């Protein structure tokens, strides 16, 4: 065991140099096992908090191993700075790391909190829907409150500008449905029934669903992002202070435009879906468009139209309401809008599928 070792700190270009010095010192102490360590701090070393942390670590290390530590300062100024610095941060209290919870307890706790948050959100959404209905009634009694220009602007964005994508998607879905069926139907010579399939599937199920899914992607996200950004920029607060209810200003025109545009887009989707189906029927199954339409007319009943219409109405209501609700619920911070928008789209899609199942069950129960 040697008596003492002397190591100078010569280089401190960056923080890594301190750690390299520490590794070097630790290795030297463990091999030589000295009773005293002399650290010389050269004059070119700048007094920094990195140096402070290094000396703190060395002091602790030497204290634990019962080694005498002597620090020699070549520059009085650095010593003075560091002493100043010590006085400056004398109250440093490093928080102990919190002990880790049992992962099972943590999981149960997390599920519990998530459930509470979900219940709270459902409650808030019901209140929101109630307020929306009340505002709608008030709008009827005082039509001046209704902002028609805003409604038309939103109708353009939600409806007209979605026509190309809704039309293309529906035509393709109609085409694919007819094509899939054509292979089976041809085997039995039941070519004409492709019209029944396309008509029923498009009107009762596919058109409302495709339209709603596209609206969830386009409209819900746009509503949430717009209202969420307004909230972050304190625009909503400023509206309240000038006595303008954000509900009349934003929620009503947006939701109503969505409810109006949804069924109209669904009709457009049925039309283009039929076109797609008819094209395949004509090309692959030799079913002429007129016989296709005649067959479709024969199979469809008024209740099919009503079920399709009801679905499109409910879906577009969900799209508009969820978009506005999630926008108003946006938290603080730049990333809040992004997260809320994702959440809004996912929630809308989920609600749409639930509503779809519910209406289908209802139509089955009441024989619609």
């Amino acid at each position, binding site marked *: 065991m040697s008596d003492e070792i002397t190591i100078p700190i010569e280089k401190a270009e960056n923080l890594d140099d301190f750690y390299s010095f520490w590794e070097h010192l630790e290795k030297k102490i463990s091999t030589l096992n000295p009773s005293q360590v002399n650290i010389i701090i050269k004059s070119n070393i700048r007094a920094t908090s990195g140096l402070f942390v290094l000396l703190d670590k060395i002091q602790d290390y030497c204290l634990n191993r019962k080694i005498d530590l002597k620090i020699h300062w070549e520059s009085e100024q650095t010593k003075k700075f560091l002493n*100043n610095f010590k006085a400056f*941060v004398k109250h440093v209290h490093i928080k102990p790391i919190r002990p880790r919870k049992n992962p099972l307890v943590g999981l149960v706790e997390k599920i519990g909190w998530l459930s509470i948050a979900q219940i709270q959100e459902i409650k808030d959404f019901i209140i929101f829907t109630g307020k929306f209905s009340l505002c709608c009634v008030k709008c009827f009694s005082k039509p001046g409150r209704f902002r028609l220009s805003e409604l038309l602007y939103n109708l353009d964005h939600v409806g007209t500008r979605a026509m190309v994508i809704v039309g293309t998607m529906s035509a393709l879905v109609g085409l694919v449905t007819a094509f899939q069926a054509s292979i089976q139907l041809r085997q039995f010579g039941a070519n004409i029934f492709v019209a029944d399939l396309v008509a029923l599937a498009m009107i009762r199920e596919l058109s409302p669903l495709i339209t709603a899914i596209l609206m969830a992607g386009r409209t819900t996200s746009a509503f949430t992002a717009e209202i969420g950004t307004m909230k972050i920029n304190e625009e909503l607060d400023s509206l309240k202070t000038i006595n303008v209810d954000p509900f009349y200003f934003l929620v009503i025109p947006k939701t109503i435009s969505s409810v109006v545009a949804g069924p109209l887009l669904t009709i457009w989707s049925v039309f283009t879906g039929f076109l797609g189906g008819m094209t395949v029927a004509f090309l692959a199954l030799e079913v002429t468009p007129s016989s296709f339409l005649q067959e479709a007319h024969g199979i469809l009943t008024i209740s099919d139209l009503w079920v399709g219409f009801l679905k499109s109405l409910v879906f577009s209501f969900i799209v508009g309401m969820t978009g506005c609700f999630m926008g108003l619920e946006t938290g603080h911070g730049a990333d809040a809008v992004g997260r809320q928008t994702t959440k809004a789209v996912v929630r809308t899609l989920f609600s749409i599928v639930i509503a779809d199942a519910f209406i289908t069950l209802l139509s089955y129960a009441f024989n619609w």
Partner: protein
Amino acid sequence: MPSTGNFMNENHSEVIKVSNLSAGYGNEVVLRNVSFSIFESEIVTILGTSGCGKSTLLKCLVGLLEPISGNILIFGHDVVKAGFTNEVRLKTGVLFQASGLIGSFSVFDNVALPLRENTNWPESWIRDLVYLKLEMVRLADAARLMPSELSGGMKKRAGLARALVLDPPLLFCDEPLAGLDPVTASEIDELLLELNQNLNITLVVVTHELASIERISDRCIMLDQDVKGILAMGTVEELKKPDQPLKVRNFFGRHEKIKSKNGEKSV
């Protein structure tokens, strides 16, 4: 208190040397042929009315805007020609007006980020240094909070801790007091002074808060929109002298007027 003496002597080496710098956006030139030097351990405030090019100059100095022409030497490195190398980046810290904290990181993680990315320190060392810095800005209790949960002053202090965590000898501050109340503002000023005195950090502060300029500046550089460059340079006392251009006297004089008015009211 900072001395009012001139730093332009041999005892202090040049930290920043700007020569014939022209900068702007697109075809619009905001600064034309600006030259000045900043010396070690002084606090220089860059001041002027809105639109005079304060932020443009700062952006050039921290490498966020490429100058049209001219040279900038930081610690002897030509940053216009060679760009901001790692060496220069690690020697400079920047405190942004809106703090620039990452919203999805806690205060602790925000301050630890430069260490985790730029050093090979183990987590225990990082923890110690981060808490040290947070204690320096009196924010150790808020280490686990998210930036959205902080007040304006706390955000500034967290931004300051992050800018300082790599121990840069040079710190740029863009409007450090914008949007803060006078009490918090003077706290931030004191913090900047302490940093300058205890850690020997050179500070370049862009501000138009007159009270702050008087509290912290060793030297001021006043920019002007019409001149498209430096209107006046010197200590606060020098700039207040009657032989200065009218705009400079107006800038400081208005403050004197407000002060005397408040004095009369309080009597």
